[in-house]
Every structure is written in structure tokens, then in C-alpha cells.
């Protein structure tokens, strides 16, 4: 396990990453017989309890799916995320945050193309009599889901109105409900790239073909899950952020896909058709409603030999969904805030995709943190998601909830709380007044500055910084060493 950064940069597939995780004690194989329901869910949820150290779990003995493999929890802990970023287990969340925030503009994208005949993803190909249930060891993710969901699909498509434009290719993570052997519905909203493309194809009456990639390069799910500029290719972005090459090939229906993915499902939108879909246990920990959603017909499936179906547990947190997207939700808000306010020192938007955010800031003047909070609400992610904001001083680590609670306990005055009524809200937030509309909360837990009356109390300043961080790690190592 020497040279973790190089090892991380050499990952080109899910298999490579599982091997790295296994070497680091961060992937296990579950070979006891397990029923799809409720067995797989129970094991995935039990693993999720350890947000710091949970291993990925590969099932190879699911009853009724002989010979098939399923992986869950690949991004399910901070230790797994650390290894993906070339950092050792035990790296703090704060360090991982700055690792990602520091990567912007650091590297060029390295994209190469593999001929289809040589791409591992095309080793096996099915073009007729397709039965998704025969290919994928699916299971009901939450007990009242409307069906069997593919929860961790990276869906690639070309802009139906500009199909030759590489930059307008879209890759996003969507969840799909299988609807019979060779169809699935896809849930999206008009503001997502896929929602825009579906509406454009239906308005103009042109085909929309997609490629659903399963079991992918682990960097793609981390970096393709966050909205970036529509003109920017997610592949280029993921490659630059990983500082590593990405190998692409063509799907049978002409879309750029990852050459080393486990499975790709090629499908075509059924223009204007909608089918009942849902509910699905969503990231706020509540079910979405039943909706009539766009339906796609599967035209072909390619997969590697003995493919691994990768899925995710999403539901009431903490879950893999939180570790998968948390840091890369936080880092763009940080970068955008820093453009206006360099006093911002860190952003923690890990909780339920940023429904609660904690921002540390050095107060420029009395009340300044509130101004920064209002700016955060106008960032692209903040517009819909940042519902509860807690503002803390720069000497409080927003990723350490014990420190955040200290700030709430000692620096918050009840009249430092602002409620902004009737604001935009994520439709699936269960606390919304009506779906899509709710209230925002800002808690200013920063210290007072003149002209505020500061009072007589002086703060204790315990030692902090690199030296203390190193001592803390050394104590932990001595403790672990005492066991062996």
C-alpha cells in the first residue's frame, strides 16, 4: 500500500478500485447465502452505521442469482473516499474536503478512446430477448419502493438537438425503476440535464438515446453527481479532478461510454409516454411520491464477463449517498463563496445533500456572517438545497460537530437566528410547506465584534494546528499499536 496517490491515479475501473479497497481492508466478500429481501438491505444498512470505516461489500451468493455478483457501499465510508483520492485511511473529513477543493484547475483532462472491439465493457453483448432481471441481481432497496431500482446508474446521453457536440454530452446519476424485462422509468426534473433533454426531444419529435453505465470508474460517480456548467463534459471534469486518464469507447447506439464499466444498458426514450413510477426511498429519508415518469425501452446490453452489479443504499441517513456526494457538494459552494468573500474558510454541506450546511468564516465586521449566509443561498446549489445554515467562526472546524455544538452553545444569541419564509425548496424535502416551497433558517453562531457589546468573557484558546493534528494521529497509532 505504498504510494497511495499513484495507486489511486492508476484506477481505471470498479474492479481496480475493489482490489485497492481489499488490499486496504476496505472491501469484504459476503459469501453466506442471503435472500434478496430483506437480506441485502439489512446488510447494507448495518454497514452504513460506520460512516468512517465501512467496507464495500461484494455479495456472491444471493439466493436465486447463482454466479452473480453485487457490490454495495463502494463509496460508503470516508476511508473508501480517502483511498479513492490517494490518501490513507484515517484522513479527516476536513483534509478530504481540502483535497477536493484544491484540485480545481490543477490538472488537464486525459481522455483516450478504445475501439469497441477491444473495450472490456463489450465482452458480452445481448441484442434480443433482453431480460434485465436475468442480468442484474436486483432487490428492493427500501421496503415500500414501488419496484426494483437501479440506484447508482451513470446515464450518458447526447443533446438530442446537438448530437455531434462532445461537450453537450451529459452524464448524470439517475435512479431507474425496472418496468418489466426490457423497460425502465427514469426520474428527473426539468432543471436537470436529462429532464431538459427529454423535454427537448419530445418537443421536437426527435429520438433520445441513452447509455446507462453500471459498475463504473469510482471517480465518475463522485464528480458527475454535482451540477457543473452545461457545456462542460463530465468525463473531462472527472478525469481532471482525478488527475488520471479516462478510457472511453462507443456504445452500440453511438454514445461515449466508459470502456471499463461492468455493464451498459442502451435504451431509447418512448416519446411522450409516461408510466406510473415510485415511490422510492430518497436521500432526505422519506419516500418520493407515485408519479408518471418517462419510460425507456432497452435496445441492447453489453457487459464484462462475470459482471459486478453495483448498487447503493439510499434512505434515512447516514448512508452511502452521503459519503458519495457530500464533499463534492460542499467544495463548489466553498469556491463560489470565496470569489466574493475570501474570509470563508470551509463549507460542510454533507448533510442530506446540503439541506443543512455549516460554514466557517472570519467575521470582517459585526454581523458579517449573516451577509455570507445570504450569499450562500444564492449559489447554484444554495438556491434549492441550503435550507438550514449554521455560521461558525474560522477557528471552528465545521466538519467537527462537537466544535459546532460548542459554537451553538456559547456564541448564539436567540435573536441571531433568521427565518426566511416561503423560499424555494427541494420538492422531496418532507418538511416543505408544500412540495417546492419552504422556509430557510440561518443561525449565526459566530462571535461578537464591536459595535456589538462583546462582554467580559475571554475565550480559551487551546492549542490547534498541524502539531496538534499530528499528535492526535500519533496517539491513535500508539493505541492501535498496543493491540497488535
Amino acid at each position: 500500500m505504498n504510494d497511495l496517490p499513484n495507486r489511486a491515479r492508476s484506477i481505471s475501473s470498479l474492479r481496480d478500485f475493489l482490489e485497492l479497497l481489499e488490499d486496504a481492508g476496505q472491501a469484504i466478500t459476503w459469501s453466506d447465502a442471503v435472500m434478496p429481501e430483506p437480506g441485502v438491505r439489512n446488510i447494507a444498512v448495518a454497514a452504513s452505521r460506520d460512516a468512517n470505516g465501512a467496507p464495500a461489500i461484494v455479495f456472491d451468493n444471493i439466493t436465486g442469482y447463482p454466479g452473480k455478483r453485487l457490490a454495495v457501499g463502494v463509496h460508503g465510508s470516508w476511508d473508501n473516499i480517502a483511498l479513492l483520492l490517494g490518501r490513507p485511511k484515517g484522513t479527516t473529513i476536513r483534509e478530504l474536503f481540502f483535497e477536493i477543493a484544491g484540485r480545481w484547475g490543477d490538472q488537464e483532462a486525459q481522455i483516450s478512446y478504445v475501439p469497441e472491439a477491444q473495450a472490456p465493457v463489450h465482452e458480452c453483448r445481448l441484442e434480443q430477448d433482453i431480460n434485465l432481471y436475468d442480468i442484474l441481481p436486483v432487490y428492493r432497496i427500501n421496503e415500500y419502493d414501488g419496484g426494483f431500482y437501479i440506484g447508482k446508474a451513470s446515464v450518458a446521453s447526447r443533446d438530442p438537438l446537438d448530437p455531434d457536440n462532445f461537450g453537450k454530452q451529459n452524464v448524470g446519476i439517475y435512479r431507474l425503476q425496472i418496468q418489466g424485462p426490457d423497460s425502465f422509468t427514469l426520474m428527473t426534473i426539468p432543471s436537470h440535464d436529462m429532464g431538459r433533454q427529454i423535454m427537448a426531444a419530445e418537443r421536437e419529435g426527435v429520438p433520445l438515446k441513452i447509455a446507462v453505465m453500471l459498475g463504473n470508474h469510482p471517480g465518475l460517480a463522485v464528480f458527475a453527481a454535482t451540477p457543473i456548467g452545461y457545456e462542460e463534459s463530465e468525463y473531462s471534469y472527472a478525469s481532471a479532478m482525478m488527475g488520471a486518464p479516462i478510457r472511453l469507447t462507443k456504445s452500440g447506439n453511438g454514445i461515449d461510454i466508459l470502456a471499463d464499466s461492468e455493464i451498459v444498458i442502451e435504451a431509447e426514450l418512448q416519446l411522450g409516454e409516461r408510466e406510473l413510477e415510485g415511490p422510492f426511498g430518497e436521500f432526505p429519508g422519506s419516500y418520493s411520491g407515485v408519479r408518471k415518469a418517462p419510460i425507456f425501452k432497452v435496445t441492447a446490453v453489453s457487459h464484462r464477463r462475470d459482471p459486478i452489479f453495483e448498487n447503493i443504499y439510499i434512505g434515512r441517513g447516514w448512508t452511502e449517498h452521503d459519503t458519495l456526494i457530500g464533499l463534492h457538494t460542499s467544495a463548489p459552494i466553498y469556491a463560489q463563496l470565496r470569489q466574493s468573500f475570501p474570509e470563508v474558510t470551509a463549507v460542510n454541506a454533507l448533510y442530506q445533500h446540503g439541506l443543512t450546511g455549516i460554514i466557517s468564516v472570519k467575521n470582517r465586521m459585526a454581523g458579517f456572517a449573516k451577509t455570507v449566509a445570504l450569499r450562500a443561498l444564492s449559489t447554484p446549489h444554495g438556491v434549492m438545497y441550503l435550507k438550514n445554515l449554521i455560521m461558525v467562526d474560522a477557528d471552528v472546524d465545521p466538519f467537527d460537530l462537537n466544535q459546532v455544538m460548542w459554537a451553538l452553545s456559547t456564541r448564539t444569541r436567540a435573536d441571531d437566528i433568521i427565518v426566511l419564509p416561503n423560499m424555494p425548496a427541494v420538492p422531496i424535502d418532507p418538511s416543505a410547506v408544500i412540495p417546492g416551497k419552504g422556509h430557510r433558517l440561518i443561525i449565526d453562531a459566530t462571535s461578537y465584534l464591536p459595535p456589538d457589546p462583546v462582554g467580559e468573557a475571554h475565550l480559551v484558546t487551546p492549542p490547534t494546528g498541524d502539531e496538534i493534528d499530528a499528535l492526535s494521529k500519533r496517539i491513535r497509532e500508539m493505541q492501535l499499536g498496543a493491540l497488535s
Partner: protein
Amino acid sequence: MTTTVCGRCKSSGAVTDHQGRQDGAVVWTILRCPTCNFSWRDSEPARAIDPAVRSADFAVDAGDLQRYPKILQQ
């Protein structure tokens, strides 16, 4: 035992989409309700699939499918 009555909307006429086998024997069957699109495996716990004990909070009214919103309208 395989029933073809939907646990969610209580319609009959479910279709079989797949059967899982282990050593040649069928160990479960995946069914789908053509009325409300609920899919289930007959080996699942009763509280998820048996209309007699399944939570009414998650029922679908087969007589009023119009109530469910259509997403992505022009």
C-alpha cells in the same frame, strides 16, 4: 405461494417477469401489476407484498390513477 393479486392496488392479473432458480428449482418469482406497475418478488416479507397486512399509506388507488402527477410536461 405465488399470488397474482397486487399487494399495492389489489388488482388481479399480475404478470410473471422472471423466476430465480437455485440448483434447477424455482426459488422465487418476480411479478408485476399491469394496473399500478408495482413489482414484487413472492419471497418478500408479507408486510411489503401481502394486501392483507401491507401498510395502507403505500396503497395505490386503482380507481383513480388520474391523481398521480405526470412529470416533465411541456
